[in-house]
């Protein structure tokens, strides 16, 4: 019969070992996440020279927003209403066909656009950025940290529908 203390100690050891292996295997991803420079999606690097939405970091998003860039929320209407970046326009990727005409009237093609969605594995902002570039907008960026990074940085979030 092993003492409970010893069993607990071994359990913690197993957890620590597993965590260490996981962090070691993914050390690049982790360090990128903590330094705020997450890898650009593979699609961006694999098409050289093509016109693609450029990734921007949180600090740049704040500067761009202050200098008149248009923030675009690519998530659905409900998530937008639940909380979005101040001043962001709602243009859900799923609704883009119905909404694009109205969006074009509001935003001229010379504007700098910054699209975002739910960060992480969320590809909607990038896909939306591609569509907007195809539609004639020339300067489209993607904020990959998206709404979660903005919110977790303690920056103001606005609730309410469009």
């Amino acid at each position, binding site marked *: 019969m*092993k003492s409970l203390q010893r069993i607990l100690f071994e359990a913690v050891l*197993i957890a620590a070992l*597993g965590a260490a292996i996981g962090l070691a295997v993914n050390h690049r991803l982790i360090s990128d996440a903590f330094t*705020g420079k997450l890898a650009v999606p593979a699609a961006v690097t694999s098409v050289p020279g093509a016109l693609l939405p450029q990734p921007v970091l949180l600090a740049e998003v704040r500067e761009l927003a202050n200098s008149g860039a248009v923030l675009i929320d690519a998530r659905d209407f409900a998530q937008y209403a639940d909380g979005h970046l101040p001043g962001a326009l709602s243009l859900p990727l799923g609704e883009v066909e119905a909404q694009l005409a109205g969006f074009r009237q509001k935003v001229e093609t010379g504007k700098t656009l910054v699209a975002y969605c739910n960060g992480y594995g969320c590809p909607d902002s990038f896909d939306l950025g591609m569509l907007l570039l195809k539609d004639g907008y020339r300067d489209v960026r993607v904020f990959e940290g998206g709404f979660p990074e903005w919110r977790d940085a303690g920056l103001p979030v606005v609730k309410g529908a469009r």
Partner: protein
Amino acid sequence: MKRTGRISYHLCRLLLGGVFVWAGAIKALDVPVFAGQVAAYQLLPYAWNYAVAAALPYVELLAGILLLINIRIKPATLLVGLLNAVFIVVLLSVLARGLNIDCGCFGPDAGTTPLQALGRDAVLLALAVAIYRQQDRYVRSPVSPPED
């Protein structure tokens, strides 16, 4: 009677180990996607979702493998039980906050709701408790390890 008990003990051990190896392997294969699912729980700051997504699958894998190969059963089962207890608390917080998210327990395509996941975790926790309590009866080490 004893024989049936022994067989069911080992079946439970293999089942629990298999479930954790499976869950760990799926998530270890796509850490960024799992990070997104961890983020959906809205419990951690941005970068920490990645840390959890990187570490947790390997902890699950390791504990599952130990259960499968019948080594360090008690600590591995204790760890699995504690993990399940944490999952249950987290899922309860999801229900309490009314979040409509995918559990992410077995990768992005499983499509399990928090409530289903809660039920499954309760079963897994019961399995872990049963294995932990039966372990001494069915596996006796020939020499007792030194007590400290």
